[in-house]
């Protein structure tokens, strides 16, 4: 893929809340996504207990933690697939306050939709549309949601399919693709919406081990070419390769965060240490 060189902003002091101790990595820009005071209850189950998270332009953030720690819920709250109980989400200047009491109201739904257009989401089980070919999967939302002319949408789709290495599969149907290929098509489909950020929800958990690599490689290329992303993952090796910053969650709060090497090699909190020890032992 053609990767443009990352911009160099020089050495800057890290602002509070950025997740970096002293200085920001040079390629990273301004805050583009901000989760503020996110609380989420499922019935009586208090899943998120006040999460604050900022993500900056061109930053790759990996969310790690045990299953049940709330990382997937946080990711789903960011594009309102789950409406937070309390808190607000900001994506690219659009701020939306959680309002579960009027979550069915038309104006709130429309605001949620505007948020979602700004964020691309990747799922564990891909969720390609089985009744559409690869290229149709990719142009459906651009033509019908963004109202792009079909020719433009097809051109973009072909480009992004090239990026994920599946240009020759453009006319296949999803049932003819392997799991790894499906996830790569899903990535191309998300990129066609030209989102400000990509949200990955354990994108390789449903894959056979030999297919994980091809998906992670695409994601790593995207990260290194400056795609802003949040990735919920258990792939620590990948996190080390691709992450600018790693965020560790436990019991619905962010326990610790920092640059990838520091978090994975020299975590400070006991919770992080325990979690990583279990992972690295295997």
């Amino acid at each position: 893929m053609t990767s443009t060189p990352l911009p160099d902003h020089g050495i800057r002091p890290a602002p509070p809340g950025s997740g970096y101790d002293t200085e920001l990595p040079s390629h990273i820009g301004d805050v583009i996504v901000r989760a503020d005071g996110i609380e989420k209850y499922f019935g009586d189950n208090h899943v998120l207990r006040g999460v604050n998270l900022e993500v900056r332009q061109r930053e790759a953030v990996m969310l790690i933690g045990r299953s049940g720690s709330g990382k997937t819920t946080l990711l789903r709250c960011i594009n309102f697939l789950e409406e937070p109980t309390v808190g607000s989400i900001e994506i690219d200047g659009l701020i939306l306050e959680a309002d579960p009491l009027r979550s069915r109201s038309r104006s709130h739904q429309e605001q949620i939709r505007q948020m979602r257009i700004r964020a691309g989401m990747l799922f564990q089980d891909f969720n390609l549309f089985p009744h559409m070919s690869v290229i149709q999967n990719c142009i459906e939302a651009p033509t019908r949601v963004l109202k792009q002319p079909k020719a433009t949408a097809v051109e973009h789709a072909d480009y992004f399919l090239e990026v994920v290495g599946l240009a020759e599969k453009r006319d296949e149907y999803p049932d003819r693709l392997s799991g790894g290929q499906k996830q790569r098509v899903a990535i191309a489909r998300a990129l066609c919406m030209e989102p400000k950020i990509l949200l990955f929800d354990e994108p390789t958990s449903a894959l056979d081990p030999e297919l994980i690599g091809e998906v992670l490689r695409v994601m790593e290329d995207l990260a290194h070419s400056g795609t802003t992303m949040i990735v919920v993952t258990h792939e620590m090796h990948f996190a080390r390769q691709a992450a600018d910053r790693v965020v560790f969650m436990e019991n619905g709060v962010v326990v610790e965060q920092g640059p990838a090497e520091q978090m994975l090699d020299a975590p400070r909190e006991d919770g992080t240490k325990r979690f990583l020890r279990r992972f690295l032992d295997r």
Partner: protein
Amino acid sequence: MTTGLGSEAAKIQPEILRRIGASQAAAHTRNRIVYVVVWGLLAIGFIGAMVLAGDVDPTFFIESGPVIVLQGAPITIFVCVVSIVLATILAIFGALGRLSTNSAINAVAGFYVSLIRGTPLLVQIFFIYFALPQAGIILDAIPAGIIALSLNYGAYMTEIFRAGIQAVPRGQAEAAQALGMPERLLFRRIVLPQAVRIVTPAIANDFIAMLKDSALISTIGVRETLFLGQRIGRTAFEPIAALLIVALVYWGLTILFSYFQEKLERRMARGDR
């Protein structure tokens, strides 16, 4: 030693495999022949017994059979095709109503399904043809029959479509939402096409059931298969023979459309499109 055994086995193997394959193919052919012969004997025996018991004049068969087939069957097929299309449209809206979060819409759909499923089709046909004129709505027999069949099957198919829509994986709607699709677009482009694929075998099944239920609209004078058979039978004093022809027409139509249904299902099973 092991290699010796292996090569010997390798020499025997193709021969054994060929013989297994041949015996399986022979058994399959044998089974088909037995099936067709027994089926055919039963059909001939059954029809023969009816002809003998009913003291049927064979010339009536030859003269009236084609008339009933050529004039009655097309009406039966026409009424059923139109009705299944209307019933499908009704069922999609019915299912949407049943799944609506709006309680009033929900109640309308629930009432419709309850009323139709709780009363006999024949009563519904009479109501539409005989009772509606009291309210100033006068319908010809064919439109009345089509409306009755559509309303009736629409109610049953509402439940089929509801199940079909619910069977589309939740992740499909989530993926569409995440792409910013508004609710209607999501339903029309993502959920409905997949639900239709899920319920197509059930709709085909209902169509075949409707072919026979449509005989009920002979009671309001639609000149379909049963109506024609009865009228021709009465005038020729051959009521049993006419009834036999009518039964054979419905049976033939069922066999014909079951064959199409089987082909359709096999095509759908091949791919997820």
